[in-house]
């Protein structure tokens, strides 16, 4: 039993992302909108990177390109040295909107979804679903449906359905934005536990400076559109972090300054 859990954890061999000279242009009725212009970015294997930036700055475009949902206009995005050509199990997304869950699937069926096309036996799949649900703390909710869960729990299902596939990279698009403040704090704590257990590479987009400094190893503050990096803030603090710590506040104020506050 213990071995299986370990095996599933080590299977999350971390992977890095390299973005070079990335450009994304959207064409609409009023003309071209340059969302990203010449962005260079490395996400190191196993790191927890947060991206902070004003609304509409191109953060979500970056995430969609890294997820393989959209193609860059020019430039490159590499995952493990290979160009990202489309969505795959290697990089999973946790969307802001929990409507991304399938209302017709139970919690355990969500987690089993990503195992459909793997060569695992039925028993191995079952065990994997079980251990992944335990990892995110949803073992007692396996037979519930999304409409029976709270917003926080739904996001844990969103995380679990990605983790089960031994995804190398977790891309999170304001995953806790719709939650109340208390739930949000609990979820952040939980996410750190999950990250520490799996050492999966995480890129998380957020509007909350507190959230970025609380979670990340490194926070990037983006400029207004087209997106470029205004400042890089390494966060070298041990978990669990205390939001009232002087160092925490020092980093926070750097971020706020670059956001224009």
């Amino acid at each position, binding site marked *: 039993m213990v071995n299986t859990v370990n095996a599933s954890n080590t299977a999350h061999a971390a992977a890095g992302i390299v973005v070079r000279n990335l450009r994304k242009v959207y064409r609409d009725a009023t003309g071209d909108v340059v969302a990203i212009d010449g962005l260079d970015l490395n996400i190191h294997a196993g790191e927890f990177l947060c991206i902070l930036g004003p609304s509409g700055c191109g953060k979500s475009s970056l995430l969609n390109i890294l*997820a*393989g*949902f959209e193609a860059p206009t020019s430039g490159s995005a590499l995952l493990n040295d290979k160009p990202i050509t*489309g*969505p*795959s*199990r290697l*990089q*999973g*997304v946790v*969307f802001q*909107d929990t*409507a*991304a*869950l*399938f*209302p*017709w*699937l139970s919690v355990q069926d969500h987690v089993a*979804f*990503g195992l*459909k*096309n793997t060569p695992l036996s039925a028993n191995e799949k079952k065990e994997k679903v079980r251990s992944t649900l335990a990892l995110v703390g949803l073992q007692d909710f396996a037979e519930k*449906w*999304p*409409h029976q869960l709270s917003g926080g729990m739904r996001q844990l299902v969103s995380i679990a*359905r*990605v983790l089960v*596939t031994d995804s190398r990279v977790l891309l999170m698009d304001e995953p806790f934005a719709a939650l109340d403040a208390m739930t949000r704090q609990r979820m952040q704590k939980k996410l750190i536990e999950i990250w520490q257990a799996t050492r999966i590479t995480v890129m998380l987009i957020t509007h909350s400076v507190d959230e970025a400094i609380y979670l990340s190893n490194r926070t990037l503050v983006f400029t207004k559109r087209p997106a470029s990096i205004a400042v890089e803030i390494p966060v070298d603090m041990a978990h669990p972090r205390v939001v009232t710590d002087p160092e925490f506040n020092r980093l926070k104020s750097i971020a706020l300054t670059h956001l224009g506050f």
Partner: protein
Amino acid sequence: MTPSPRTAVLLRRIAPPLAVLLLWQYLVQQFGIGDGFVPAPTEVVLALETWIFGEPSRYSGTWLTSLTDSALRVAAGFFAALIIGAPLGILIGRSKVASDLLDPILQLLRPIPTASWIPFCLIFFGIGSSAAVALVAVGAFFPIVLNATAGARHISTLHLRSARMLDATRLQILWRVVLPAALPSLLVGARIALGLAWMLVVISEMVAVKSGIGYELWDAYYYNRMDVVVAAMATVGLFGYLSDLAVRLVVRKYLFWHVDTGK
């Protein structure tokens, strides 16, 4: 003693139809409303009793056979429409090419009243059961195909992206994402279709088939047996209601996750 809220609700619901029946009985009995062409409710009940339980004869003991004939035609036509219409609608909803090719034809055919297909049903299938089944199928086809199309067209991008990032194949996306997402709309279409099916079976039996509730209804009209006519109307109404109830039970069982219809 004040009745409990539950009893009050029940009374409120039962009282109006009961009042209508009593008024109808009173008007016919006391004033001969309808010049003898409108049967009183009690006459209808007696006619229905003979029709169901009587010795085999005209309008006697033939109710169950007629009902079975009609119900089987409804079922056959409805399921034929479902088997063809549901996959076709999902195809049109998911494929731009299929939509461009097929949608204009459907939109042109749809406004044609189904009953006007009766001549062609008779030419192709002759007088008999299959003509009725064909007419029911034509009528039931449109709400099913159109609602399946609408359901399949509006699949959330988030759902499609979720499935793709979890490495689902096209077939798995169709089966595990598109079909369940389109199901609520598809079942709305099925409910409308089933209601139409009962209407069309009666119409087709009036003109094209020599059996079934619709046939007996029209036959009874020619013999001035208005009590049997009303008994036939009540029968179709009741079974139309029961089949709608059956679809609603299916919906409740399989769409419990759909917050809008599951309750």
